[in-house]
């Protein structure tokens, strides 16, 4: 089944520059329906207000980290099915394990390129 390139995607990062980069890379891959949140709490609120097909979140945010956001999403019966890709500069094994245990769908290490983002999205949704 082909992925719906018009599906809403929520990108979460407290760095505006990073939001802009991810938005542009998604656009390059053909995904234009992108919303942004600058912290975990507002991301959670957006997810509860509107259906999303994918969350791409930074880990390193305050006060709610990406990991905490992931746990909140997985603990919410209405949200727990949403694919969640973690984007982070923290590539320590224990962090990857913690994210996996919390239910992360995939994990991207910064810095990354459009090809890596595409590979991870293909791993989630299949070829597009």
């Amino acid at each position, binding site marked *: 089944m082909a992925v719906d390139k018009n599906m809403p995607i929520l990108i979460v990062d407290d760095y505006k520059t990073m939001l802009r980069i991810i938005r542009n890379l998604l656009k390059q891959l053909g995904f234009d329906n992108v919303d942004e949140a600058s912290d975990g709490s507002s991301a959670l609120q957006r997810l509860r207000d509107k259906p999303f097909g994918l969350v791409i979140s930074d880990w390193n945010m305050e006060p709610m980290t990406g990991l905490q956001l992931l746990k909140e999403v997985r603990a919410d019966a209405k949200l727990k099915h949403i694919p969640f890709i973690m984007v982070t500069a923290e590539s320590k094994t224990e962090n990857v394990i913690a994210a996996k245990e919390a239910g992360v769908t995939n994990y991207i290490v910064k810095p990354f390129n*459009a090809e890596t983002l595409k590979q991870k999205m293909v791993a989630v949704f299949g070829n597009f």
Partner: protein
Amino acid sequence: MPTRLEMGSAGKLGDAGRSMRRAPSAAVAAGLATVAQPVAVSRDELRSLVEAVIGSLEGDLTGSDLKLYTELEALARFIQTAKQEIAAVRPDTIRTEDIPAAADELDAVVGATEEATNLIMDTCEQLQALAGGLDEQARTQIESACIRIFEACNFQDITGQRISKVVRTLKHIEERVAAMLDAFGDEIARLQAQQPTAPASVPPVKSANADSALLHGPQLPEDAKRQDEIDAILASFG
């Protein structure tokens, strides 16, 4: 029959007492009082007196005690020297000037790279918009080049995070310096007043004000003058 010895004065016995560098006990003092004047002392009396002196020292100063006191004195001297050296590097200015200045500089680095990154991305988006009017091959090439530029802009996020870690480390150092100053109380200030310059073994810490002596190196944004302001200043000279 005991041999009687003539004791001319207390000085003869006093030599032993001074070598021990301590106050005589009551028994010894009584003995000294006895021999304070030229008197005849029997051998038994003298033995008794010496035993009293030695007995009064027992348990007060052993060889290991002496070694311990020597070590403690060396330690005290070391601590005092360390305090003087700490005072010489002026930890108060490290806390109030140097570390905040370093943090400001790093914040400025983050701000400048963020500004530059956004400008680069603005330009890329303009190029992408312009490419829409070109043939497919040219448009694809420009799109591809712009994406590579966007990918490269990742550096700004990574750099910002790393600099944030450095700033947190500086903040931690600042807190530890403050704690050390609190622990020393007024002593550091007093030592600084006594020794205003650093000893040769401790290089002086560069003050934030030292930048005023340098013409190279960027100023912080709030301190920097714009080119038009510089031009206006130059123009004011006629």
